[in-house]
Each structure stands twice: as C-alpha cells, then as structure tokens.
C-alpha cells in the first residue's frame, strides 16, 4: 500500500514504539536514516539501526532483530522484493518501506495490511491494475482443477478456461513490461526531510543530508537532470528559509548552506585544478584527456582562460585568490568552445565558521569512497559507520579521510579506463559492449564494490563513445566485469551493466536480463544486490552466461 501523508500514516503511528531501521549501503540511504534518527531522538522513539548490503543481510537482520519489534522501517532496500514471501513475518508486524529502487514489487504494493510504501505525493508510479495481476478466484479454480477428476467438456468451463489462459498471458506480459527495466525513484533523503519539515523539526543539518542524498542520485545517474532541477528548486526554498538571516546577525560558527552554481569537477577545492579535471568524468570524457591531443586541449583551455599552468598544478587552496574567484566565470566563458556546456550545474555548499567550504559534490565523493573503503582492516559495516560519522558536520576529520580515499579511487578508475582504451579492451558483443578488468590488476580492490564499479562502467562507456568511430556505440549498453577480490571465495567476479549513453533516463534492463540469463544457463550467480544491475558470478560460468545474454538481447 502506498502512503503519501508520512506524518499521519507513518510518524504518528510509530510514536512511542520501538523501531527497527534497516538501511541500505548507499549515501542516500544513510542520509535518510540520519534524518529519521534525529527525528526519532527528538521524540524519544527507541530504535536500532542495522546496515544492509544484500538480500542475505536483510534476512539475517530480520531474524536477529525483529523478534521484539513490531515496526520495521526499510530504507532503500526491500521495496522490490515480496517482503512477506521472503521474510515470513508474523501477522502483527508492519513494514514501512522507503526505497528508491524501482520497480516496486506488486505484492508489496497491494498488501494493505503489512506493507506501507512511503512515497512523495505526485510521485506515483504506473503500476499494473490490481485486477490485471491478481484474481480473487485463483485458488478456487486451482483446487477445482486438481480435485475434479472427470474432464469437463461443457461449453461454460471451456470458455472459462480460455478466458483464464488469456488473462494469464496478459498478466505475464503486463508484469514483464512492468519489471523489465530497473530504475530509481526520488531520493529517500529528501522524502525524509519533507517529513521533518512537516513536523517542524527541520534544521540546516537535516537539510544538508537531504541535499547530499539528492546530489548522490545525480552523480550516480539515478535521476534525470530535469528531475534534479525540480527537486533543487524545492531544496533551494528550504535553504533560503533556513538561511535567511544576514551573516552578521548570526554567530560566526553557525552552519550556513548556500545555493550556487558549481563546477562539475570532482573535489577540485581539495585537489589541484588539473588533477580534478583529469579525474572528473565529465571533463575527462569531453576533452578526451587520456590522449595526447586531449592533454593539449586541456592546456589550451587553461591558457585561454589565462590560468598559469603552475597555478593549476598546485593545490587549489594555494592558487591566487583572484584566480580562484574568477575560475567559474572563466570556465563558463570558454565552455562552449570546448564542448563543456554543462560544466556548471546548480548545487549547494556548506560552510561553518572559518572552516573551508565544502560542496555537496565533495560530500558525495568523499562519503561514497568511505563506504567502499579499500582498507583491509575495516569491515563493510565499519565503513558504513564511517560514512555516518563523516556526515555529522562536526566530525571533519572523517570527511577529510574520505576525500583522500576518493582521490585514490578516482585515480584508479582513470588508470583503468586508460588501460581499457589503450589495449582496445572494450569489445562489442553485438547487442552490448563489454570490458573485463583482468585478474591480478592491483586496482581491482577498488572496483570490487558496487558503487565504484558502476562509476568505472560509466566512465569507460563515455570514454569509449567519445573515441569510438562507429556511431552505433552510442546506442549500446556496457557490461563490465571485475574479479571480486574482496570476497573470501576465489573465482568470483562482479558483473555490472549500464544503459547506453544515448538513453536519457537511467532505465536499466540488465537486472531482468541477468536474472533470465542466469536462469537459462544455470550459472552459479548470486543476485544478491538491491541494485539488480550488479551481480556476483562464478568466473567459470562467465562465458556461457555471456552467450545466453547475447542470444537474449539480440
């Protein structure tokens, strides 16, 4: 069942109860959970937060913690799985689901008793009608068929059966159409911020988390730019409402959020300009920086902007103040000539007292890198807590560590993309392109994580399209595989599929395709992730799995 009035249909119901919060491993989810936690704290609602990465985690966490709890909140997980079927909960248990994964499972949608799916008003999805997918007489009919031994030949029954067969075919088609593509709904963090606002419990810190959640969706291409702009407008309203006081009216160390144009460059405030341009997906693929020619174009661009190379190669904070102040407008004026039209986008930044400024983009890069830390000493859940900490405004050191991690990650991605292109390792399989990170690559430890892998995939695809001579490559999706060096088992790889660059919306058919290919070939595959376009697969089954995919998609 969908609920849109979160205050009445969710918050008021759970006040005074104990809550189990199951939070998916993604920045948006953690932001949402942090907002929710701070709401709960103001009302003394006891809760337990358990990080969830895979389906198995979900089942385990449910079995371990659900015994005493009657209200479970799922954040960015579980919406696309039939929860009642998977977890077999007792009848008095209620799930509140805030999941940005789509499509939502039909059984969840039509379960009015135990499943409450939280969505924004006006965000309703096109869901198959109830009558098209469920039939009241289903069970009756079946038992009839099994029980009735003598065959019925009368007209009525035949008609009924024909009609039923037709309905079933129809149902199959409808469900297939519905589940064919996986995509993302709006950010859960903004949904939770909305609730906080309606409860009059919003603050700058909560707003910042909502902004980070939303920005993460933009960066990982889970939301279309148009939709992002709409949400940004709403967020901007909140920003001006909460930051309307003039600077000198407030204490110096208060938190300020500003809405402003921002360069689409990764971490440039904490790096050097040249490094940042090289490692940012947008500027690197547009200028083709991995080629000699691209390098020249970059230097040309900097020269035209009047930026001395020495200044661009040193740390940004060491650049002349005058250059820093003009950087945006300089880049903007030259953008068209170099095809960098979208280098500026609407974003937010945060500052507190005399600390340096951080943009929402910085936060997203740093937190995502923390979440997929390559430090062997840290478990996944340690990383989850690091992200939770880094989002707390007062814990700056964790964030700074994240920024350093992110630089390493981006450098590894860049190196890998260069290798792919230099060695011509992006290969067309007909209906899709594929690339494989070779076993034993030292950087593989970075890629054996969902977020980083899909970033690598997107980088690779855009870079490939940018250099490829064939027009067709624009309309081809990409599959990338990498050895899963983080897993304890050997001989396992991660497979990630992303839609073609020509596709405007982030709709992705690989989830369904992977499922079918795995079914068909009986491959040893684990469809464990909530982002269904990423799976774990046994290396031995890879070739037959790919063959099946090719025949399925061509």
């Amino acid at each position: 069942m969908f609920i849109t009035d979160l205050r009445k249909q969710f918050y008021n119901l759970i006040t005074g109860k104990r809550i189990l919060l199951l939070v998916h491993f993604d920045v948006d989810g953690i932001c949402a959970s942090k907002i929710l936690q701070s709401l709960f704290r103001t009302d003394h609602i006891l809760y337990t937060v358990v990080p969830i990465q895979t389906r198995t985690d979900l089942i385990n966490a449910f079995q371990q913690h659900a015994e005493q709890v009657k209200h479970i909140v799922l954040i960015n997980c579980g919406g696309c799985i039939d929860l009642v079927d998977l977890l077999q909960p007792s009848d008095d248990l209620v799930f509140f689901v805030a999941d940005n994964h789509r499509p939502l499972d039909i059984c969840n949608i039509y379960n009015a008793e135990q499943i409450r799916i939280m969505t924004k008003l006006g965000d309703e999805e096109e869901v198959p009608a109830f009558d098209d997918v469920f039939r009241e007489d289903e069970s009756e009919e079946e038992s009839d068929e099994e029980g009735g031994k003598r065959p019925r030949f009368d007209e009525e029954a035949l008609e009924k059966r024909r009609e039923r067969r037709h309905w079933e075919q129809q149902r199959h088609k409808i469900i297939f159409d519905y589940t064919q593509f996986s995509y993302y709904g709006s950010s859960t963090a903004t949904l939770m911020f909305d609730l906080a606002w309606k409860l009059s419990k919003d603050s700058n810190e909560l707003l910042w988390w909502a902004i980070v959640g939303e920005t993460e969706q933009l960066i990982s291409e889970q939301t279309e730019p148009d939709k992002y702009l709409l949400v940004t407008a709403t967020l901007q309203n909140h920003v001006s409402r909460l930051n309307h006081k003039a600077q000198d009216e407030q204490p110096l160390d208060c938190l300020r959020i500003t809405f402003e144009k921002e360069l689409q460059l990764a971490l440039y405030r904490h790096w050097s300009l040249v490094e940042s341009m090289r490692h940012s997906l947008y500027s690197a693929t547009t200028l083709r920086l991995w080629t000699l020619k691209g390098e020249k174009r970059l230097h040309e661009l900097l020269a035209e902007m009047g930026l001395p190379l020495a200044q661009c190669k040193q740390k940004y904070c060491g650049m002349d103040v005058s250059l820093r102040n003009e950087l945006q407008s300089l880049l903007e004026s030259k953008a068209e000539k170099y095809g960098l039209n979208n280098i500026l986008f609407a974003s937010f930044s945060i500052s507190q007292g005399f600390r340096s400024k951080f943009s929402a983009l910085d936060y997203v890069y740093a937190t995502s890198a923390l979440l997929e830390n390559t430090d062997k000493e840290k478990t996944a859940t340690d990383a989850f807590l690091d992200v939770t900490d880094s989002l707390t405004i007062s814990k700056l050191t964790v964030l700074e560590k994240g920024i350093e991690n992110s630089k390493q990650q981006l450098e590894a991605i860049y190196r890998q993309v260069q290798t792919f292109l230099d060695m011509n390792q992006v290969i067309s399989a007909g209906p899709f392109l594929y690339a494989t990170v070779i076993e034993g690559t030292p950087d593989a430890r970075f890629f054996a994580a969902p977020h980083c892998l899909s970033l690598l995939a997107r980088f690779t695809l855009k870079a490939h399209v940018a250099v490829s001579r064939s027009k067709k490559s624009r309309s081809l999706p990409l599959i990338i595989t990498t050895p899963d060096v983080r897993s304890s088992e050997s001989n396992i790889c991660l497979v990630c599929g992303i839609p073609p660059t020509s596709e405007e919306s982030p709709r992705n058919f690989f989830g369904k395709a992977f499922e079918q290919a795995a079914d068909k070939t009986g491959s040893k595959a684990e469809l464990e992730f909530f982002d269904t376009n990423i799976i774990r697969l046994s290396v031995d089954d890879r070739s037959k799995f790919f063959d099946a995919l090719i025949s399925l998609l061509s």
Partner: protein
Amino acid sequence: MLGEKALELIKELDRSKDGQLPTFNEDSIRMVLEEMTTLFEQNQRDVNATVAGDVRFFSGVHLRHAALERNKRCLLAYLYNRLERIKAMRWEFGSILPAEIRANICEPEVQWFSRYNKNLAAYMRSLGEGTGLDLTQDTKPPKNLYVEVRCLKDYGEFEIEEGDIVVLQKNTTHYLPMSHCQHLIRQGILEHVE
C-alpha cells in the same frame, strides 16, 4: 642495602599502569619478612647486651630498627595500594573483575573485594528512601534520558526495561535509555555517539 627487596615491591607497583595489577608477589614478601626476622633477632640480642650495660651496640640497634620500620612501611604500602587499586576497579569494571585481574589477586584480597562489593551494594540499596541509588551511574551529569549508542562488540541479547530485549551486534546503532546502557558504555561494549 637493607630494605632493597621491599623497595622492589613498591617499584613493581609503580611500574604497572592503570587497569593493571601485578601478580601478588608472595616470594618477595616472604623474603622481606625473612630479612625482618633476622634484623629483629639481631636487635633482640644486641638490646639484651645493651641492657646488660654494653652501650657500644646502640648505633647498630638504631640502624636496624630504622630498617625494620622501613620494611614495614613498604609492605603495608604494597598491600594498601593494591587494595586501593582493587577498590578503584570496582567502580570502573563493575562488581565482576576481568579474569586476567582476578588471576593476579590473592585469596585475602578476593575476600576483601567481595566484602567491599557487599558493603557498597548494601549502602546503595539503602539510599533514596528505600528505592536505592546506583552510585556508579551518572558520574557525569546526563543531558538526556536516552542516548544513541554504537555497538563495538558482539554482545548478544540485552534487556532494557520490562523484558524488552535488544540484540547488541557489532556495528549496529541503537537509541536506548541512558540508565540501562551506561555501564555497557563504561565497559567498552557500547560507544556513546552524538
């Protein structure tokens, strides 16, 4: 030099840090006691001679007596400071000491500890007009009745008021009543986050 062994005991105690307690050094204590017996016997002999009229021995007697006093002081300080440490541990570790520490304390100390425990418990029960007051709680003025805590270790089931059970599993986050989880924070099982 006289009193050397006794000093070693004191140095041993001085070297060990907070949260540690060296093994009860029975050997050294016995050796100190032997030294004291020897000193005492010699003094006894010389004092008898002095009483008999031979005043030559007086300086020696005086010296040995000082050494006896010194040894006594070291031994008592050794015992006393150990007890003080065990007492402090009651407030830090709670009524059950970690096995590594229990292994290092001697039988009379064990008895002393359990009596101290009993006394403390009885006193705390008698406070607050019959309701009792846990003095080990709220050593810092609490700001909130509830706190957000993070679990640092797998601990298992933990009961918070009236049979409500929370499963404390590593790296899970909980919001719980301060009064219940405070001692787990002190024990390093939970971490107070804000």
